[in-house]
């Protein structure tokens, strides 16, 4: 009798386990294979692949699209990178608006929407993240993959017991071997993440990029927030951009020097290993805070959270927050405005190497119209101008 009971219990548990496998498996599969449409704006003159610059990433999940917006007149080259950390959606949606709307009058713009593409196919273990989020638009809803800070272990595994950064040999936490923003400048025969960084370095060198901007978001409890982190080559540029943005009164933007002792980060290594000026922009994302409440799509997109407000009342935050939260439109608007302002200030200083971009909304416009207003309907667009990201 007892044996029989054990037998029945084993069958029931196996069936439950199998059901869990099926239902979670479907969710994981759909997440990893969710197709995001990019409608190429009239400014996009060419779409390349990352592997065009370095063969080592060909056939891997990280062989992302490279959008090139060649200006009508020559000028400098600006490279804007999104999804270095795919759990920071504003860092991905802001460059998305550039690709679908931007037109370069002068100079050249290179845009990446999924720098760590592997990281856009996985969510944080233990984090309770939603697998996707949707932005309302005039023609319906557009769905995006939510990602993680690190590459998917399906693409790079196992991790070592300690991550030793190349070439500085600085010791970092083992998981950061899958963190794209700890693997710069990368190397051609390294891990997938290191190869990806190396490929971007090749792109930066071959396309003679003058300014490199890495778009991020940060938790409010993190001291580096609402700021530009600048390599010493970009101190002057960043200082003026932050000053003008803040003085215009639209929003506060700080400026910090890239520390020499922190290795693997883009603002340090891209500047050190190429001729480009490297900058990193941080916007506030309450979703990343350890004290956040319920982990939902709504929290991700509105940035409203009572617990974080409470932490703020106790002086634990480096950015203000109230019951209005930090809506995604505000965060994306900060990034588009900061990128546009960087072009403007650069052009003032370098009239012979201008960067002039039109049709991209700044802070006030993005907030007024919402991001959805600037996302194009892929089903009504010319199919030849629709790319899967």
């Amino acid at each position, binding site marked *: 009798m007892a044996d029989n009971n054990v037998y029945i219990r084993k069958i029931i548990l196996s069936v439950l386990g199998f*059901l*869990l*496998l099926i*239902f*979670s*498996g479907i*969710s*994981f599969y759909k997440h990893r294979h969710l197709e995001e449409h990019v409608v190429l704006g009239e400014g996009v003159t060419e779409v390349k692949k990352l592997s065009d610059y370095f063969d080592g990433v060909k056939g891997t999940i990280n062989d992302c699209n490279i959008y090139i917006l060649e200006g009508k007149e020559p000028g400098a080259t600006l490279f804007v990178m999104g999804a270095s950390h795919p759990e920071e959606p504003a860092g991905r949606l802001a460059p998305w608006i550039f690709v679908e709307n931007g037109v370069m009058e002068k100079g050249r713009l290179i845009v990446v929407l999924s720098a760590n593409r592997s990281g856009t196919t996985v*969510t944080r*273990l*233990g*984090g*309770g993240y939603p*697998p996707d989020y949707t932005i309302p638009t005039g023609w319906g809803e557009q769905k995006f993959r939510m990602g993680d800070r690190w590459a998917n272990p399906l693409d790079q*595994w*196992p*991790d*070592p*017991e*300690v991550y*030793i950064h*190349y*070439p500085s*040999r*600085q*010791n*970092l*936490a*083992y*998981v*950061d*071997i899958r963190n794209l923003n700890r693997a710069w400048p990368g*190397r051609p025969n*390294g*891990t997938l993440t290191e190869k990806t960084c190396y490929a971007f370095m090749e792109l930066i060198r071959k396309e003679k990029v003058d300014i490199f901007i890495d778009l991020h978001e940060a938790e409010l*409890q*993190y*001291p*580096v927030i609402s700021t530009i982190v600048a390599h010493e080559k970009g101190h002057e540029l960043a200082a003026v951009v932050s000053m003008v943005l803040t003085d215009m009164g639209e929003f506060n933007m700080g400026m910090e020097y890239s520390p020499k*002792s*922190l*290795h693997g980060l883009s603002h340090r290594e891209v500047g050190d290993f190429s001729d480009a000026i490297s900058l990193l922009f941080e916007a506030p994302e309450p979703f990343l*805070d*350890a*004290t*956040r*409440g*319920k*982990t939902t799509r709504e929290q991700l997109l509105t940035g409203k*959270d*009572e*617990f*974080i407000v*409470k*932490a703020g*009342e*106790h*002086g*634990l935050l480096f950015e203000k927050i109230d019951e209005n939260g930090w809506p995604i439109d505000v965060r994306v608007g900060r990034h588009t405005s900061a990128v546009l302002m960087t072009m403007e200030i650069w052009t003032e200083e370098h009239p012979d190497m201008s960067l002039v971009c039109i049709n991209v909304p700044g802070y006030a416009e993005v907030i007024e119209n919402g991001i959805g207003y600037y996302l194009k309907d892929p089903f009504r667009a010319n199919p030849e101008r629709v790319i899967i990201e």
Partner: protein
Amino acid sequence: MSMFTYAGIILGVMVSIYIIAKIFKLSTELSMLAAAIAGGLAGGFRIPARHIAEGAMTYLDINLIFITATLFMNILKESGGVAFVVRRILKRFHRSRTLLFILLTLLLLIPGALTGAGSVTVLITGGMVAVVLNYMGISKVRTTAIVFIIAGLSAAAPPVSLWAMMTAAGVNMPYVGFFYPLLIPCVIAALLTIFILGWKGTGTDIEKAFEELPEPPEKMNWLRVILPFIIFLGLVFIGRQWPHSTPVIGLPLMFLCAAVTSFILSPVKVNFFKISGDTVEQLLPLIGTLTCAGILVQIMTLTGVRGLLAVSTVTLPVIVVYASLFFVLPVSEAVLMWGAAPVIGVPLVLLFNTIGLNPIVALAGMSVIWPLGDALPPTAIIGRLTVEIVGYKESYIRFLKACIIPAIIIMIIGTLMVIYSSELGFLTGL
């Protein structure tokens, strides 16, 4: 409904279901699973298959390390290697208790210090050291306490301290300057532990010990015992020394290489598949606990319970935070394991940084206290593993009582390191 009420209700539901499950004599792992599912239901997430599966994978790597390292130890034991080593150590050092203690402390500190996991210490040297301690006349319960406490300290000891690394990563602080702030308290506390708990034992009864110890196979020798360790340490060393010209193979495969070496070198015939099966069976409760702890953390995060606990901790008055570290850190460890670093560690370090303490020394102080929680339910992973490996058969509460004195010493050291972190800033060498 405010988020505080909502998360508070779910926390209440989860705790109640956990207690009820325990009353109905469900195992720890199933009780945690029940609490997690109840939390998901109460939170309006129905039964979130994706989150359950994702949470279950959180500690996959650690589970693999457990399995492969234990397999290695079991093969070594089966081949007679363990008995051989214990006999030789006793024969050589039985005259000096002090020297033996220092040697055994080192044996216990090294594996965890290198890998960051106290479990690895317990699995690799814990069993062997326990046998030696037993023959030194130290009771089983005190032996278990010694192995557990020093294993915990070994995990906090440099170069790899996962709590410090994960918290540092969470606040984007480089993992630099931690070596002495971690090493000094760990070594001091480990020596105090073994001398306080072990000193009173009866003298080493070498005759009786040799009578009772199993006789190792005749062909067993130092080379056969040490070579598998050399393979393991060699692989770790190569990965450290030439990280950019060797492939990353990970700790589980390194342990497996050691296990295979030990199997090949065994002077007696060992049944590899039977030992593998036994190993998994032996570890099943631990693997189950880790898997379910992962699910529990994921659901707590999903429903905001994790946030409630974190925000409640960091918004206490600073004096209360200091005074409660000894309690909050071990409890967070018991519930979340390494998950405690991002949940409690990150907000606390940011809090300490804001009020002008030295974040490196403060975090090192916290890292020393954290592992004490590994003996506490609901997870009690390392505690249960130690009990298992040492072969302690009596009440778990008695084991916990035996840990109290060294635990209090460690709590005091850690808390003082936090409070006086600015004054101790010179330890970082920065």
